[in-house]
Structures are given as C-alpha cells and as structure tokens.
C-alpha cells in the first residue's frame, strides 16, 4: 500500500488504452495506415503459418518441371531446380522478418538508452556521446555491414550483428532531441523538484511521451532494414545458402530472366510489398501524430 491514490490514478492515465497516442490511432481512420497494417499483418501471418501450411517442401526438386510457368499446382511457378517458388517466397519471409525485428529491437533499445542518457544528463556526457554518434553516423552502414558479414561469414546471427552496429545511432540522435525538448516541460521539472530518481523520471515521466515518435521511427527502420537485409542476401552475404531468402531468390532468378522471369518477379514483389507496407504505416502514423503535416495534406 505504498502507492498513494494520486499515483495509482497517474498509472491508470498512462495505461495503454488511455494513452493519447493509442487513442488517436483508434479514432483516426487513415487509408495509408490501414493499407500498410493490412500488408504487414498478412506477411506476419504467412511467416508464422508457413511451417504448418500444406505446402510442398522447398527442397522438393523436380527437374522435369524446371522453369514451369505459374499454374494452379504452383501459383508462383517453379525455379531452376523445379522447386515451388511460392514455398520459397513464404519461407523467405521468415528470415527477413526475423532479422528485421531483431535488428530494429536491438537498435531501438540501445538508441533509446544512450539517447536518453545524453539528452537527460547533458553536459560533458552529452558532448562525448554526440561526438561518438557523429562518427558512427558518418559511416556507410550498408558497406560496413557488408564488410563485416564478408569477414565473419554469412549467418543470420552475423547479419543481425553487422546491421545493428551502426543502426542505433539514428535512434539515439532522435531520442536525445525529443528528451531535450521534454525535459523543459513542467511535469518533468516538478517530478525533478519532488525528488524522484533520474531513472524513474526517464522511465515513468519521459518515455511514455516518446511512444508516438518511436513507433514511427521503428516502422521506417523496419522498411530500411528489410531492404539492406535483402540486399546483403542478394550479394550472397545473408543467411547461409541452405536457407531460402528473398534476396537470394532474386539473385539466382536473374540468370533465368529470359526463360523464367517469374523466379525473380515473385520474391521481388514480396520485398516490395512488405517494405511498402512499413512505409505506408509509417507515413500514416506520422500524418496522424504530426498535426502540421495533416493540415498540409
């Protein structure tokens, strides 16, 4: 019974359903947002259900049916080994989504923590963190990830590691900027003067206000990560060759463009749709959360 009534009220106000951000989301009906969410949900469902769906195995080689055009038995056609392209595309979604989710979670957590420390404490800590961020920011992320995977060897773990190493800098910079602004707010100032610990102020009074910005950031980060992941897989620097990935399928398909363009087109469309889904969702979210852009649209 250590919590006072007012504090319980505060917690209630901060709960998911009363959060102003979630409230606006439920109230506003935005086409971009719905379309994006629909595409993403479909992709997640496919990724999760693929192992239990009655699909032929992607190792089911049938050399008689090589390069077969899309038909009822194989809706996306068959590849150069006679394997079902639809199965390959479905399995590929698992790798892409797993990698993207891991990378975005890791970079968001690291970026949130470091950005909060820099923004909240300021002074010398902020100066050193910011100079370090400037350095990381100046690195070409794609090339660094490429070099790391080339050196460490292609595997899902190395891929996640290589992409996380530079990704958090952008998040940290965003969080720092937001916190510099929020720190001046009255409720944060009063929380400080009442004598709350820094950790409590950051986690209870500041972070809930970042949910909107962070959601938009994560959505666009998912889109960006998916493109980089598929790009690395395309160059043979993604998951090991035994795991089907969209990038790898596109790479092998480009040698058969004349006789079997469907080998490239379906995995390509899969990447395009998923990335588009995240970009649509991000755009929709931003439009709702940023009143300025709404009036202009």
């Amino acid at each position: 019974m250590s919590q006072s009534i007012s504090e319980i009220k505060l917690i209630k106000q901060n709960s998911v359903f009363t959060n102003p951000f979630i409230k606006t989301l439920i109230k506003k009906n935005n086409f971009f947002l719905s379309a994006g969410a629909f595409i993403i949900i479909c992709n997640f469902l496919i990724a999760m259900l693929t192992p239990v769906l009655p699909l032929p195995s992607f190792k089911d080689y049938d050399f008689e049916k090589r390069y077969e055009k899309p038909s009822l038995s194989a809706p996306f056609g068959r590849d150069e080994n006679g394997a079902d392209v639809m199965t390959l595309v479905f399995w590929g979604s698992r790798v892409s989504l797993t990698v993207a989710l891991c990378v975005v979670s890791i970079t968001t957590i690291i970026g949130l923590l470091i950005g909060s420390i820099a923004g909240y404490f300021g002074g010398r800590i902020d100066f050193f963190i910011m100079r370090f961020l400037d350095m990381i920011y100046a690195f070409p992320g794609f090339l660094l990830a490429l070099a790391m995977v080339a050196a460490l060897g292609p595997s899902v773990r190395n891929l996640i590691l290589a992409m996380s190493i530079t990704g958090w800098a952008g998040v940290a910079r965003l969080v720092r900027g937001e916190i510099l602004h929020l720190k001046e707010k009255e409720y944060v100032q009063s929380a400080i003067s009442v004598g709350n610990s820094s950790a409590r102020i950051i986690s209870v009074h500041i972070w809930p206000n970042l949910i909107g910005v962070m959601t938009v950031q994560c959505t666009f980060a998912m889109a960006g990560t998916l493109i980089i992941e598929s790009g690395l897989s395309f160059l043979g620097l993604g998951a090991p060759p035994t795991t089907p990935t969209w990038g790898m399928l596109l790479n092998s398909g480009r040698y058969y463009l004349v006789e079997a363009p469907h080998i490239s087109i379906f995995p390509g469309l899969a990447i395009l749709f998923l990335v588009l889904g995240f970009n649509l969702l991000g755009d929709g979210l931003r439009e709702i959360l940023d009143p300025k852009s709404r009036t202009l649209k």
Partner: protein
Amino acid sequence: MLSAFLKPFFKRILLTIPVAFGVLTLTFFMIHMIPGDPVDLILGDLANPLDKIEMRAKLGLDQSMGHQYITFLFNAVQGELGESLFSKKPVSELIFTRIGATFELALTAMLFAMLFGIPLGVLAAVKRLTFFDRALVSVGLIGMSFPGFFLGPLLIYLFAIILGWLPVGERGGFANLILPAMSLALPLGAILLRMTRASMLDVLHEDYVRVAKAKGLGNFKVFYVHALRNALIPVITIVGLQFGSVLTGTVITETIFDWPGLGTLLFDAIQRRDYPLVQGCVLIVSLIYVTVNFITDIAYIMAHPKMRMS
C-alpha cells in the same frame, strides 16, 4: 564575420579526421575479424607450411598488432593498399581503373533522380490535395520502397528482353548507361519528390510568396523562381547526403548490370575471398562517402546564414 564562418568549417574538419581514422581502423580490423587463421582461409587448410609462413610474412601477420596497424595506416595514407590475392596486381591500381565507371554511373543516376524528382515534387505541392498530388505521393512511396535489386532485373526484363530497346551490360555509349542509372535513380528520385513537396509546402505559406502573388506575377514565376529557390536548400542537402547511399547502392546495381566499376570489383573480391581487395574497396568507398558528407555539410552551412552563427 570571417571567423564566424570559419569556425563551423574547422569544426567539421576536426570531426572528419576521427571519422576517417575510424574508417581506416575498422577496415584494418576487418582482416583480423575473419574467424580462424586468414592464411588458412586464403591458401586452404592443406597448404604447404612453408607457403603459409611466406604468406603470413607477406600479409605482415607475423608482426605485432600495433606494428601492423601503424604500417597499415602509413601505407593507406600513401595509397598503398596491398596486392590482390587473385590477380596479383596492386589493389590501388585495380581500384583506380574501375573508379571512373562507378562515378559515371552514380552521377548519372543523381542527375536522373533530380530531373524527375524535383519538378514532380514542385508539381505535387502546387496541386496539393488534388487527385494528381495524391497519385504522385503514392508513386513516391512505391518508388521509395523499390529495392534496386528488384528494379534492376525488372528493367532488364521490360526494356531489354521484351521491348529490346536498350542494351544491357558492358560500358559504352549513353544507351548502356540508361538502365543501370534508372534503377539507381528511382528510389532517390522518389525521396527527392517527397522532400521537394514537403519543403515547397513549407515555403508556400511564407510572406514573400504571398507578396510575389500579390504583385501579380504568373504562377510559373511564383512557384519556380520565388518559392523553389528557397525550398531547394533542404533538398540539396538531401541530394548530398544521398550520394553516399547511391555510391553504396552501386555495389548491387553494378552486379546486376555487369557494370565494370568498383561494385563489381568488390562483389568479385567477396566471392573469391580476396580480402586485401575487399579491404581496399570498402576503404575507398567509405572515404569517398565521408568526404561527400563533409562537402554537403559545408555547403549547408554556407547556404544557411543561421547555421553560420551557431
């Protein structure tokens, strides 16, 4: 006034030096990150022990780490990047023969992107809230989501295989340049379209635009002379910052179109595990990236009187 201008300039230079060192250090450690003995990887497990010792000495791996690092830095600063394991030619020479093709491709792509991104962005802003604007915004979103490694094969299929209008592969005349440059340009052009539109919408509310309209100037003059000039400042920054991503994007585009630039050099080097060459390519492209970002920053400071003061 001069010192107020020079101060941020020097600050940027001071910031760029550690970044360049960081790039050098990371590429140095790349060869040490390879799990196991790089010599085993290069020569194979069953290689003659004498060959291994020779190779180790050649790569300088028998020296202490600090010594190796200093040697690497000194050599790199002098443009000495070692020798390709595969072709036995100096890495710097290989890079030098390829770099022109990459620049040709990247610059053409930037030009394409600006040519269709900026005017369409202005058009979308001028006709805001109409069907036309919404269509352009949607096209922009789709273009932004188009991965180059899908667009490339798609363009080849459409324009080279089905229609047979344009050639693929080989560097040659302008016709050979169109498809690879287009596949690099579309995502960038889409970003520029969105940026230009947003930037124009900001500017169209400004007083000087209203004044220009009130003076009775024609729409074309108001939008393209008075508004666009101011709206372009953030767009130009994006162009500069995106040059880096276009440059790294060439790795994939060149691979698809067999373009004889740095990208294919790097891709082949990765396939053959030619580590000194991979190291050299990553180093050079990263340094170009850092330099372009530096120039963009300076241009931004020069264009923004406010930034000069802070």
